[in-house]
């Protein structure tokens, strides 16, 4: 994956987090992934069209609960926000993905998105993924957050769809 594409993904995620839930992710070139009791929640979305691939967004459950609370304008710890945590993670990924593919493909072409799916991820798996080149790791309110893109069709140097093949 080109540096330009990775930078586009980083910028889109930060903008969406800031505008939608008033949280300010700080990108880190390296971040230890501590093993909390709850592990991580990971959401995956696939995209198709001129650019095909998937995005994974993984956060510790306590961060997903804060995201949900901010989404809904509720206080942290509100029971309703806690219920919405998994849904909020999916929606953050959905919005981020829409912005990422629009930036990478240009706005002239339709890109189809799948419905995001959520599953529990062990922190060892998140730590492994965080060490790979296609991954971005952020500090969100003191907790590690992973965003990882996988392309079936590689973005070119300017972030536009480019050569066929893996990232």
């Amino acid at each position, binding site marked *: 994956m080109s540096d330009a594409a990775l930078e586009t993904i980083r910028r889109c995620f930060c903008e969406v987090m800031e505008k939608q839930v008033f949280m300010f992710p700080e990108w880190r070139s390296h971040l230890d992934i501590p093993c909390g009791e709850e592990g991580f929640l990971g959401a995956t979305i696939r995209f198709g069209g001129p650019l095909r691939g998937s995005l994974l967004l993984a956060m510790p459950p306590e961060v997903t609960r804060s995201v949900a609370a901010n989404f*809904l304008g509720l206080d942290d710890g509100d029971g309703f926000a806690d219920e*919405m945590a998994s849904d909020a993670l999916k*929606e953050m990924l959905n*919005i981020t993905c829409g912005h990422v593919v629009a930036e990478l493909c240009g706005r002239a072409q339709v890109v189809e998105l799948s419905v995001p799916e959520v599953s529990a991820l062990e922190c060892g798996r998140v730590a492994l993924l965080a060490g790979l080149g296609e991954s971005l790791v952020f500090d969100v309110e003191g907790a590690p957050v992973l965003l990882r893109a996988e392309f079936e069709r590689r973005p070119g140097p300017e972030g536009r769809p480019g050569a066929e093949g893996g990232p």
Partner: protein
Amino acid sequence: MAYNVLVVDDSAVMKSVIAKALEMSGVAVANLLRASDGREALGVMRSHWVDIVFADINMPVMNGLELVGEMKADDSLRSIPVVVISTEGSVARMHQLEQLGVRAFLRKPFPPEALKKTLESILGSRP
């Protein structure tokens, strides 16, 4: 005048966000109806009076584009204005929505004022 608004989104959190934005907009809402996909939305519209629909595109079972297509094919539903709220923002998608008869498009994330403006421009222009 108060309106019956139908929000169609598979995301419970987005349905709540839209409900909150409607509340903050000051627009009088008589009934806020909710559905989680296009098929459920058609059922709601066939059993309730609906003034306007806010629909996502990317949903399971029946997506937003299929929903609008079904509405346009149904004499009793085709005049209900639809606003699409989605994360997608391509010009090609806008054109597709326009051709389907969608009245407006809001891209997530959107400020509550944008929803109010859209609602007023559509319902305020109704005969």
